[in-house]
């Protein structure tokens, strides 16, 4: 390993000099950025960090921004597909005993809606936003493990294709996104539909675990010099906590889906009560993942809110430390709530009551976050632009969702509303209000950074009001129809129950809400092609992603910035202090210490490679084959091994040999 001899053009904090451990052997050294003038520095870096040309080059890319863009676009397409599912369902439910679609298709539709929105849209898009922004915000040149990151995208795409091709073949899962046994077990779900559910979970879990690991390492080891723990932006904190939640929650659902596949394919009886198995075990395992899943989707969105509010309130976040602690608290508490999804299963009353208390308790750290955001907005005159409008929408909607969540935490109350449209309303208020609205705000906020062009403000305001009206019209009445006794997951209902008119109103709202996304898509495409050019830092925000050009170059920063404040661009108005000493002819990054972010060593970042794609194809093929026979694992091991050997083949780099 080469040691660090990073020096600053300004005064470095003394401790970073103390960490320098001497120079490297000259024969291994190449040109450094220390003395280079700007023009030749850009030339060098652009050549070293570029994505190779051509199709193979594009498929080999390991640039976190390229991968993130693909993720964002793919996830947005899945959002549209999932939204279309919802519109078809809403047309079917717009009146009693409507015959547009039968139960077979309806059950596939609502399952695909849930699976698509959870696994193919929400989790990937919040992680993708992190893939794009985290390396920029912590001031590094690429995400940690860039090839793993590329691999995660290809696995995700193949999982999504697998699910939707199955749907096109009328082979999509029809057992709900939760796929409770025995309904999804071998006896009651013949055919391949439930296997598609189980394996598609595996694809997306592999991919999101990979991203989580890359994110954690990026945040811990690749922060710019000086970005000690107390100077990490809140958005990055949110992604860090989320990634840990992913790492601990996802294995639970992988175990669940693997047990299910074993029951279905190998003939085990893990969930079969007749043979000593237990059907409720499935629910415990699933919700041990399923509840943190909500926070996996929600926490990154709180990070987005924490990024947008300071920029428009024109001050640093009030209660930064409180927000960080509540993020961490929510991360821990999210693992202690899963039983509130199972109150109606008849668990012992005392045990269930504990989960009432813990479910209520998580409202406290979430309350802390809300109050700190509000307090930040208080002593300033916020600049009201579209991103902030969506943050206001987030408050309006998410607080309702949070409060109905408090209602659901109460065991007796939950027994009336569990599995009714009240719950449908509740979690759409939480997930759309808590995650999609901040995501839309984030889209307007960071789109100029990603494309270098502004989004239309006029269309943005129309979009916001259309989305607000459509969303509330579609989902608020669901609370009421749920209390009137309408259960979830019904493909039709009798006329005499009097739910017809309100459902018609809900469907109209749903169409309106869908149209708001059509408008948004138009705004995205139109602005990407014709939008007014955006400057590097058009909102005059304070975090590092605004220090580089829009769109950022492949190497993110010509010189690695040194961080002196939690809002570095506000603290250093003239010029950001930078660290130099990195080689420009190879992909070198600064690896820093976890707590203080002292520059520690220089390390090479992986070069573009086609192997992650080939490995993902091998893995995806194995998963696909494995819904037909357990031997797929044996036969698939060979191509996976070959591609992994290709991927990790030693390059003869001196760094590898040490």
């Amino acid at each position: 390993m080469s040691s660090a001899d990073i020096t600053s053009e300004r005064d470095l904090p003394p401790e970073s000099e103390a960490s320098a451990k001497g120079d490297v052997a000259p024969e291994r050294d190449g040109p450094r950025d220390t003395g280079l003038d700007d023009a030749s520095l850009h030339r060098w870096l652009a050549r070293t960090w570029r994505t190779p040309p051509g199709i193979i080059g594009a498929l080999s890319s390991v640039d976190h921004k390229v991968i993130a863009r693909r993720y964002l676009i793919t996830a947005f397409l899945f959002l549209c597909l999932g939204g279309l599912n919802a519109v078809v369902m809403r047309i079917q439910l717009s009146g009693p005993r409507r015959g547009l679609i039968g139960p077979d298709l309806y059950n596939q539709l609502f399952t695909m809606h849930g699976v698509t929105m959870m696994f193919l849209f929400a989790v990937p898009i919040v992680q993708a936003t992190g893939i794009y922004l985290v390396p920029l915000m912590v001031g590094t040149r690429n995400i940690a493990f860039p090839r793993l990151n590329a691999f995660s995208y290809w696995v995700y795409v193949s999982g999504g294709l697998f699910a939707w091709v199955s749907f096109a073949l009328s082979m999509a899962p029809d057992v709900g996104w939760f796929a409770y046994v025995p309904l999804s077990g071998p006896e009651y779900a013949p055919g391949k539909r439930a296997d598609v559910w189980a394996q598609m979970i595996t694809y997306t879990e592999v991919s999101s675990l990979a991203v989580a690991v890359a994110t954690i390492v990026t945040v811990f080891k690749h922060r710019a010099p000086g970005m000690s723990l107390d100077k990490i932006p809140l958005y990055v904190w949110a992604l860090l906590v989320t990634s840990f939640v992913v790492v601990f929650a996802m294995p639970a659902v992988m175990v669940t889906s693997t047990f299910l596949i074993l029951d279905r394919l190998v003939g085990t009886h893990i969930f079969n009560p007749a043979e000593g198995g237990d059907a409720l075990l499935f629910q415990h395992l699933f919700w041990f993942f399923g509840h943190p899943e909500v926070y996996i989707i929600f926490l990154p969105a709180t990070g987005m809110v924490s990024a947008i509010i300071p920029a428009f309130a024109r001050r640093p976040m009030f209660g930064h430390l409180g927000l960080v602690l509540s993020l961490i608290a929510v991360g821990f508490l999210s693992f202690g709530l899963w039983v509130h999804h199972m109150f109606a299963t008849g668990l012992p009353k005392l045990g269930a009551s504990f989960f009432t208390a813990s479910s209520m308790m998580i409202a406290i750290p979430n309350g802390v976050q809300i109050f700190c955001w509000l307090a930040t907005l208080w002593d300033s005159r916020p600049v009201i632009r579209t991103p902030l409008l969506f943050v206001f929408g987030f408050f309006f909607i998410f607080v309702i969702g949070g409060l109905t969540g408090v209602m659901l935490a109460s065991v007796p109350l939950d027994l009336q509303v569990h599995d009714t449209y009240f719950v449908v309303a509740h979690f759409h208020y939480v997930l759309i209000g808590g995650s999609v609205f901040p995501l839309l705000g984030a889209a307007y906020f960071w789109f100029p950074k990603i494309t270098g062009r502004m989004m239309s403000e006029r269309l943005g305001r129309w979009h916001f009001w259309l989305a607000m009206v459509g969303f509330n019209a579609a989902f608020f009445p669901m609370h009421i129809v749920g209390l009137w006794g309408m259960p979830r997951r019904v493909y039709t209902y009798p006329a005499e129950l009097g739910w017809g008119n309100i459902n018609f109103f809900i469907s109209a709202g749903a169409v309106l809400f869908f149209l708001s996304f059509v408008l948004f898509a138009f705004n995205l495409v139109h602005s990407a092609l014709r939008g007014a050019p955006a400057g590097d830092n058009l909102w005059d925000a304070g975090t590092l992603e605004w220090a580089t050009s829009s769109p950022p170059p492949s190497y993110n920063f010509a010189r690695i910035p040194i961080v002196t404040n939690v809002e570095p661009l506000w603290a250093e108005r003239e010029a950001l202090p930078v660290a130099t000493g990195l080689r420009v002819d190879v992909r070198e990054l600064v690896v820093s210490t976890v707590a203080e972010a002292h520059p520690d060593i220089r390390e090479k970042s992986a070069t573009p490679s086609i192997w992650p794609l080939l490995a993902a194809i091998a893995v995806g093929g194995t998963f696909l084959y494995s819904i037909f026979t357990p031997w797929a694992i044996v036969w698939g091991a060979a191509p996976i091994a070959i591609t992994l050997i290709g991927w990790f083949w030693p390059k003869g780099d001196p760094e590898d040999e040490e």
Partner: protein
Amino acid sequence: MKRFASIAFVTAIALFLQGCAGWQSALDPKGPAASELAWLIWFFTGLCAAVWVLVMIALALPLMMRPRERAEPLVVDADADNRKLRVVLTAVGLTAVILVGLTLLSFFANRTLAAIGSDAALTIRVTGHQWWWEVRYEDATPSHILTTANEIHIPAGEPVRLLLTSTDVIHSFWVPSLSGKLDLIPGRMNVLDIKADKPGVYRGQCAEFCGAQHANMGTFIIAEPREKFDAWWNDQLEPAAAPMSDEAKTGENLFLKRPCVMCHKIGGTPAGGTVAPDLTHIASRQTLAAGTLTMSRGNLAAWIADPQGVKPGSHMPVVDLNGDELNAIVAYLEGLK
């Protein structure tokens, strides 16, 4: 925009008021458990609405007061921030107090609910099937044990204990105007105590997704005065009424010769299948196919002739019958009061 919003609002209110007298509604309680829960729902709703309004006021404050624009984002008024810290800490403390209060409230509500059925004299075992309910009235005397389907008669004003289980997938028993829901899980037995204050018919339906016909798995609780209930029980224990007309007689023979007999039981005849609803007194029920159709000659014929059209995916197969045969079977079943 404003005009549209106000029209939408008025329409919404009108729609909401119109459906309030639902007979399957948690807001229309007809028993002590549902009343307790309705009160709890309204209390939580009121409190949450108040909290929401306060948060929205706090959000609107800076927009209304229009403080001066900040020039230098990093220059923060420390005194103002200290004041804010006190406000935030107070708000967090209040949140905690409210949450502790709500937690205690829900514990006490749970105790109240648990006390309702402590002296239940009648025990009914409800078994969930895809997609109907098997109802068995337990009794110490074996000859008094009664098995029926989908409609549960109970004596009004008395607590009744339901034992809930399933033989296939998970279902959930829910009659909102009487009580909260509880799952029917294969390999487990759950206990739900219900009580209807007054005689009446209370609709419920399966609340856990259970496959193709989850939407059409309704049930009715029919609460009657005690003496009427006892009479009903005694009537139901009788074997099936003998066919009165020739057509019905033909129908009985057809029923016993055709696949119907493989699944259904009719007391007093050789038909003894147990995988489908007991038809001994089918004509005394109000609905067919677990609340999907009202009981009538035409609906009986429709259900037998085209079960997959009425309830696609249901386990009732199409039995090949010509028109006369269908009429005969319907005539026979119609007589099974």
